[in-house]
């Protein structure tokens, strides 16, 4: 075990960095996707409702690994067939898109549930003061909804971080992929996967602790 850490330690840390980079990128996009799709779903516009529901159902209905293959291998092939010969997606780009799309669908449902949990009297009070729908959402509904959503959002963050390991299948050099390489080179599966597992665990436990703090701080004002 010590030998593996001595030989491969810096590579493992680098791979962990890639995992975190992929997580951070996809989460940022997922938040934006989630917010847009959830707002489409809570409004009353039928076209938006249809699109929003179709997105959530569509993306949730496909396993992440299939989505990743489709975007990494399928989409460039399709684009090339349309005549753009130079089109390429790096593993990081494809991985970010796949994860963001996937996580965005779940995030949309979390945000929608959060918005719908806010008493409708809040919307009425704000609208009766003369604020329009968008201002009411921004100033009254979403700030309250986000407080309700924090635990679910953090849970989704953790799931997404772990889901990055699935993207080892398209060759992105994140932590799990590095684990495969090391286990293959050293034939020490037990030690390698124990180290990799512990690395994930440390990051996720640390994240949970930070999350708990944030949650407590945000709830302070409510008394």
């Amino acid at each position, binding site marked *: 075990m010590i030998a593996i850490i001595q030989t491969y330690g810096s590579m493992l840390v680098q791979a962990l960095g890639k995992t975190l980079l992929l997580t951070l990128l996809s989460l940022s996009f997922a938040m934006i996707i989630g917010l847009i799709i959830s707002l489409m779903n809570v409004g009353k516009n039928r076209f938006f409702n249809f699109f929003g529901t179709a997105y959530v159902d569509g993306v949730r209905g496909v396993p992440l690994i299939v989505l990743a293959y489709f975007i990494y291998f399928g989409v460039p092939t399709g684009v090339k067939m349309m005549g753009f010969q130079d089109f390429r997606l790096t593993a990081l780009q494809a991985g970010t898109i796949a994860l963001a799309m996937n996580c965005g669908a779940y995030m949309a449902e979390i945000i929608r549930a959060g918005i719908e949990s806010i008493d409708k009297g809040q919307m009425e009070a704000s609208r009766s003061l003369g*604020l329009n729908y968008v201002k009411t959402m921004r100033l009254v509904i979403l700030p309250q909804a986000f407080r309700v959503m924090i635990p679910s959002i953090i849970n989704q963050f953790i799931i997404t971080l772990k889901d990055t390991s699935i993207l080892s299948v398209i060759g992105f050099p994140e932590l799990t992929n590095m684990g495969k390489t090391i286990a293959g080179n050293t034939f020490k599966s037990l030690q390698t996967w124990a180290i990799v597992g512990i690395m994930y665990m440390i990051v996720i436990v640390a994240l949970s602790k930070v999350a708990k703090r944030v949650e407590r701080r945000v709830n302070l004002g409510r008394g």
Partner: protein
Amino acid sequence: MAEGKTIISVKNLKKSFGRLDVLKDMSMDIEKGEVVVLLGPSGSGKSTFLRCLNQLEAATGGTIIVDGQTVTDRHTDINKVRENIGMLFQHFNLFPHKTVMQNITMAPIALKTMSKEDAHAKGLALLKRVGLSDKADAYPSQLSGGQKQRVAIARALAMNPDIMLFDEPTSALDPEMVGEVLAVMKELAADGMTMVIVTHEIGFAREVADRVVFIDAGYIVESGSPKAIFNHPKEPRTIDFLNKVL
């Protein structure tokens, strides 16, 4: 008191929820400075009528004109009209994530009717007026029901409305807190605010209302001065209702 100028004009208002006809045919003119109390059994449509006035409920038929603006017309900028109509709710509906002061200043700042400094100064003046100067930095969860409703009044007044709607403002309060809210409302009435009030406080209606309107089953059954309605009701349904509540 009434100045003789119509500020709210309702003609043949109808409202249905699906197949349920809540308001069948209601017409009413309200004058500037008038205090109108809507009375009636629960489910009679009085709250729905009130909520149609600022279009929290969209009317199914008929027209409502507020301050010269046809609010039932889809082309009217309803947000602009609402700035001029304050509303109070049974459950206060204060914003729990904002302090008392932020509750009051949010709308004037967001709608740019006042600068931040002016809104804050106005907020302090309003809190003084409702007797809660020391609560500016408190959160709604730290207030009693009566205090919450007084903050809600201050919040509505921050937009300088000409009209105030009250939807059972004391129904969710403990009995000992009803008085403090009614006292603020009395002052508003004395200052010449146009007020439309749904309430079960008969004593308050007797004392403050210029007109009492009895509503039942989606129709206006009878309307007149508090004296006329409470002492000499004409319609059997009014008599029946008053016998139960007085």
